[in-house]
């Protein structure tokens, strides 16, 4: 077996510096706790945008509320830090208003699956052409450690001090059955794979859902920790066929051994395509620009 090439800090720093991806980082320092998995995600997003050469002023990153939702402040694109649970409908409005923008929505597991749960199915079935990055730490970080709908049963938190009586949702099975046209999973502890998955999710035309397992080092010492996740995550089988929803469902069902990779992908018309065809049916001009400016 070949030895892996060692990584030296100065070489890595030089590589990052020369890659150009720092241009995609904003001047603001992240406010997250040292060790939080979210740092890896901001690295992944900036690296993916840089690799894909997406112009910063054509990209919009929107978020809900939570530690995770501070994300837009740390990337150098257009951004909108909205309300708890509402990032998907706001992002839908932005995309409908201007199809040419590259739209990324981010948020925590509480944001997406508790307060915002009602919007998931609709964004997915509409196939609005945005990328949704869900940061799953299995706990409410910003409000200091309460139970989330993705918390493990038995997990002790400030709002379930004896233990969490609920069983967690299975987010991947939900998104698959809602009709998301791209569903994948990544782990903050595998940054290179994470970056790859983010790039793929962005490249997909339609609603892409990337579930990112990301430890909260401050409020979860027992469940989704680096140590625990590191032991249970696995790759999808090499022969996994991402065109079969039921096969993807079977993989998603194994929540105890989260698989990383692309679960499912299909190509179908986006919300934008469908709205454009309505305009054509009505005899309107879909290319009529939303921009009403008279110029500088």
């Amino acid at each position, binding site marked *: 077996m070949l030895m892996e090439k060692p990584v030296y800090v100065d070489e890595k720093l030089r590589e990052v510096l020369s890659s150009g991806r720092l241009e995609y980082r904003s001047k603001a320092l992240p406010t997250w706790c040292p060790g939080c998995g979210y740092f890896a995600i901001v690295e992944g997003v900036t690296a993916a945008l840089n690799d894909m050469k997406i112009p*910063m002023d054509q990209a919009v990153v929107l978020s809900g509320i939570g530690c995770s939702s501070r994300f837009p402040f740390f990337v150098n694109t257009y951004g909108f830090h909205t309300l708890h649970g509402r990032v998907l409908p*706001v992002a*839908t409005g932005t995309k409908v*208003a201007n199809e040419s923008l590259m739209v990324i929505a981010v948020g925590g597991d509480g944001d997406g699956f508790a307060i915002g749960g009602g919007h998931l199915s609709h964004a997915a079935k509409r196939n609005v052409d945005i990328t949704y990055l869900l940061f799953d730490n299995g706990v409410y970080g910003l409000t200091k450690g309460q139970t989330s709908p993705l918390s493990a049963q038995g997990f002790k938190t400030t709002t379930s001090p004896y233990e969490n009586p609920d069983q967690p949702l299975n987010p991947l099975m939900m998104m698959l059955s809602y009709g998301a046209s791209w569903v994948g999973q990544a782990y903050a502890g595998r940054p290179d794979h994470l970056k790859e998955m983010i790039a793929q999710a962005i490249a997909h035309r339609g609603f892409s859902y990337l579930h990112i397992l990301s430890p909260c080092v401050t409020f979860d010492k027992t469940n989704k920790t680096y140590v625990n996740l590191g032991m249970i995550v696995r790759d999808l089988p090499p022969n996994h066929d991402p065109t079969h929803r039921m096969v993807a469902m079977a993989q998603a069902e194994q929540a105890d051994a989260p698989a990383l990779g692309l679960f499912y992908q299909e190509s179908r018309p986006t919300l934008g395509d469908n709205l454009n065809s309505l305009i054509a049916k009505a005899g309107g001009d879909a290319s009529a620009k939303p921009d009403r400016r008279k110029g500088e």
Partner: protein
Amino acid sequence: MAARSSRRRAETTPESPPGVEINGEQRDGAPSGEKGMSGADIQIAICGSAGDGTIAAGDILRNAVAEAGYKVISFDVYPPEIRGFGKCISRLRITTDQAYSLKERSDVLLSLDDSHTIPHVGEVRDFGAVICEAKPVGHLAEGEHLSAHILPGQIPYSLPIRELSEKATGGNRSRNIVALGYVAGLCDLPKAPFLRIIESKFKKQGPKVIANNAAGFGAGYEAGCQTFKLDDVHFAPPARALQPGAKVTILNGNHAVARGCLDARLTTFFGYPITPATTIMERLATELPRHGGRLLQTEDEISAIAAVIGAGYAGSRSATSTSGPGLALMGEMLGLGTIAEVPAVVFVSQRGGPSTGMPTKTEQSDLNAALYGSHGDSQRIVIAPTNVEGCYRCAGKAFEMAERYQTPVIVLLDLYLSNRYETVELSASGPPFELDANVHAKRLKPGEVYQRYVLTDDWVSPRAIPGDPGCMHVITGLEHNALGRPNDSEEMHELMSRKRHEKLQGALRHPDFTHVKRFGDAGKVEVGILAWGSTFGECLEAMIMARAEGIRCSAMKVVMLSPLPEAEIRAFLDDCGAVLVPELNYEGQFAQLVQGRLARPVTRLTRVPGGPMPVAAILAEIRRLAGRC
């Protein structure tokens, strides 16, 4: 009796007293102040059971008389149930000059179903006409025929409606059209506009249906012309000349809103159905794609306003429409719109509340929710049109204001205004709205950083939108500094709260918009009426009657409710011996607003009948306040 006849005189006496007005005209080219009610003024009520074609007859009538050059105001009452044989009434007031409300008493009542019409016979005035079927099918017990209920002084006309319909068309499906023809003949209305409207209305059903209905109408019309008229039910020659090039249309409030949106180049609309706002969305669902725009029915009102905010952020002219329950769900997102300074327009058509309340009845009880319904200091703009043309203008102006002051704007209507029809004169010179009020950022110098919330003289910061080169920034619901970076220091929250407050004051001087307007007697008056929204029409009618009785009286409508034009209202109150504030809610929400802001006594007139404010109730209060009772 005496009171009634004097009121009738007040309704029809020609008068054009000098009006007082503030902040210019609302209607292009209209004479100042209220217009005198000279010429024709007749109110026709058609009453029947669902399925009799009551509302359809009313619709043909209002379109035909509008085409003949009359002004119309009309309001239909539907049964709350979707199926069955509930009562339908279509009431139309047809005048030479635009009237402000329906009259309490109709001049003509047409019955298409006696059992439903009998309780309404009392609304016909003395010497008014009551028209019913002469040859009802089958046996009617005593008291089941309308003729047994006609009051002394009312004039009965009976007509073999069914027989005429069968003779003319070979069936009885055109009963409503035959009866309509009879009314038109009886009232000396020209026949041609009716035939044109019938043709366009039945175009889709083919030439046979058109021919049948035209024949039915003709048969009824002939019968009407031949009827000996005891009564004074007839029309004076109509019509003031239109402004050159102007076009008259019949619109209800919601259709006027939709038209205003399209003329203001709305590009996206997100909504969730709710009575009485749904028809705004339905009309736009058809029209917006024709204009290249996009409409999406969302999963709820939270999503609707969220998408509007998201689209507004991206530079789209975007709107949603709802009623009180939906407005309650939108509260949090409106607060985000305020602090993040994103334009958004929300049309709210009020209905009886709270909760599901009286969903098919009108009320003005969401004023507080519109003004304050959110969290924190969520200053916003709230405007409320008082008539159908106002709905059109407020709709278009709402987009200008949302963009110019970068904030959510709520346009408050109610069921009565949403559903009532009026003749509207649309100007020939194109839509009177500014199509771009975005207040844009200048191109940046190299090395310059764009500051989304930079402080300026008018407190409005130049806006950049996603896609603009080099202006990347983050907007947020967190308190922030000029760059949009989170900052919750004491000084910053004071400063930014002030910014959001001060920038809205500009809306008090927004160009080409009627913020408030005074009608009636100038100078000192015994009684002043201060009112908002759809109720203002009834207030004007009451004021005209009071003045005809010799009471010095004027009325001010307040279209802009937030920010409140305090100086103009104060000046008006200074002129008034007593101030009456009529509104359709129980606790007097507008009166509370005025008293809270101006610390002046006012007399409340609050009613929650589910229908328009009775003109008689306003008049009685005016008399009482003027010491004339």
